[in-house]
């Protein structure tokens, strides 16, 4: 079986060099007809699932379009679009005044999201106050026992400084208190979810859109972070998801963002766990 597949693989490798192109088939995607360019997207890692799904639909409709998606975090998204390295730079936070002025950025908000502290589903600790959360992240509380859990040291996970998720969590949940330098650093929302899922004694934070049964979202000051509680404003650690462009949006990038803001794009955002803006 393996051998047969590998032979098949080999044949494909050879054939790969004989390239041909073709065409495919409608509705909201019609605006992408006749486009041929490459659209480069990078930045916020919370955005990636929505970007991937939108890209998949667009490229299935029109195979001549190439949409490339990279991560990096909000900071990278803003800088890269500012420097002209990508067409759309995503961010999970608003660009600062300085960034907007320096690069002439245009921000488009297409969804609302929350940031929740998460622990492994096996963890006995399910609720925390803001004060407790701050003490955990600063390293003051170092054992789950102190919070009514098992007698295990707490493993704190955080993101690098470029992360928009980190900056919102730090501002609104930790109220700008320090995060211990002993914290493990991971590179994206996806990586955070994976790390917390793999480590039974961990705590981290992810975009609410990423929460499923592989991690447990901590009830913070009595409010459970869900799409509804974020939408109704009870859960306050919330933010917009932005796509930024340099100068006015035009060309394929405009079509892409229009698509995100349209009914189908908004539906994708909803399916991926975010709150549509329209």
């Amino acid at each position, binding site marked *: *079986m*393996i051998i047969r*597949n*590998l032979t*098949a*693989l080999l044949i*494909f*490798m050879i*054939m*790969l060099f*004989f*390239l*041909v*192109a*073709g065409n*495919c088939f409608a509705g909201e995607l019609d605006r992408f007809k006749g486009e041929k360019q*490459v659209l*480069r997207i*990078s930045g916020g*890692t919370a955005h*990636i*699932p929505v*970007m*991937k799904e939108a*890209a*998949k639909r667009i*490229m*299935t409709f029109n*195979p001549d379009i*190439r*949409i*490339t*998606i*990279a*991560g990096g975090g909000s900071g990278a998204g803003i800088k890269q679009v500012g*420097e*002209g*390295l*990508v067409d759309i730079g995503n961010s999970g936070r608003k660009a600062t005044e300085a960034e907007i002025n320096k690069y002439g950025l245009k921000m488009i908000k297409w969804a609302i999201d929350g940031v929740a502290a998460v622990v492994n589903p096996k963890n006995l600790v399910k609720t925390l106050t803001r004060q407790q959360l701050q003490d955990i992240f600063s390293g003051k509380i170092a054992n789950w026992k102190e919070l009514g859990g098992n007698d295990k040291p707490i493993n704190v996970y955080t993101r690098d400084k470029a992360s928009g998720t980190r900056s919102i969590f730090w501002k609104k949940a930790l109220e700008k208190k320090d995060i211990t330098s002993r914290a493990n650093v*991971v*590179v*994206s*929302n*996806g*990586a955070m*979810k*994976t*790390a917390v899922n793999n480590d039974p004694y961990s705590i981290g934070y992810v975009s609410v859109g990423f929460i499923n049964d592989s991690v447990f979202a901590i009830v913070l000051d009595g409010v459970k972070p869900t799409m509804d509680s974020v939408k109704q404003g009870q859960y306050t650690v919330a933010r917009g998801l932005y796509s930024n462009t340099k100068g006015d949006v035009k060309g394929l990038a405009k079509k892409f963002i229009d698509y995100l803001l349209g009914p189908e794009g908004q539906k994708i955002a909803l399916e991926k766990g975010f709150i549509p803006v329209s």
Partner: protein
Amino acid sequence: MKPEFFDRLFNYFSWGCSILLVGAVLTIVGFLIANGYQSLNLHLIFDDTRPLDAIFLKSQVFDGLFPAIAGTLFLITLSIIVAIPLGLATGIFLAEYCPPKIKGSFSLLFDILAGIPSIVVGLFGFCVTIFLHHYFYTRLFPCLLISALSLAFLVLPYIIRTTQISLETLPLSVRLTAPSLGATKLQNIFYVLLPSSLSGILSGIILSIGRCAEDTAVIMLTGAVATAGIPKSVFSSFEALPFYIYYISSQYSDNSELMKGYGACLILLFICISLFVFAHWIKKRLSQKILYRP
């Protein structure tokens, strides 16, 4: 203390270490195979797209490994195309023309190049790209071409070294025959010396291909991205197998994605080990042929 005691200790120690290391390797490979063999099928590579459609680019593969495999192949091809002529020419110069005085400093430099951590080479590629983007050509981004060039620098010392050594270790009888019959130095190099040292050079090249296939640090800085499809030109971003493995390992969202990661590991491991075995086979076959030529 009896002498036999040392002997026995020495024996146990050697056996123990060998078993430990081989055990570790078997554990690694076994772990990958045990977890990943189920995912090895066409679906892994092409997802729901029909294989022929994917190969002829009629439709794109989104959740399969096809774009990553294609990206890796393009990458290898490009960097080898750059590295071979440069490496061969340098190797020939070092072996045949270089005055002994400067040979030492040249080889020291190539040893250093071989020792530079690959991420530093990647950073260099990235910065040069940003620099050019800023001051010369605003349509230049980190892309396939940049990755390939950076990788070419990375494997250059291997090709140089194997070329140089294969040429230098040729027996004098081979080296002197053609010139004594009136051939020029250049004719001697191209018609006698290079063909005679082909096996060494080829195995060096194949090992470099293996290095291109496996390196992750360089490409993650110079243009490999999470989703790109088949690259349209050398100026576009691309996917690659090793980067895919790294990406999945840190951010798989469900078990089926993780399984794809295992599958990708097995495919990459297979590619690299086969290249290695192939290199050795060529070395052996060709050197036999040369030895037994009538």
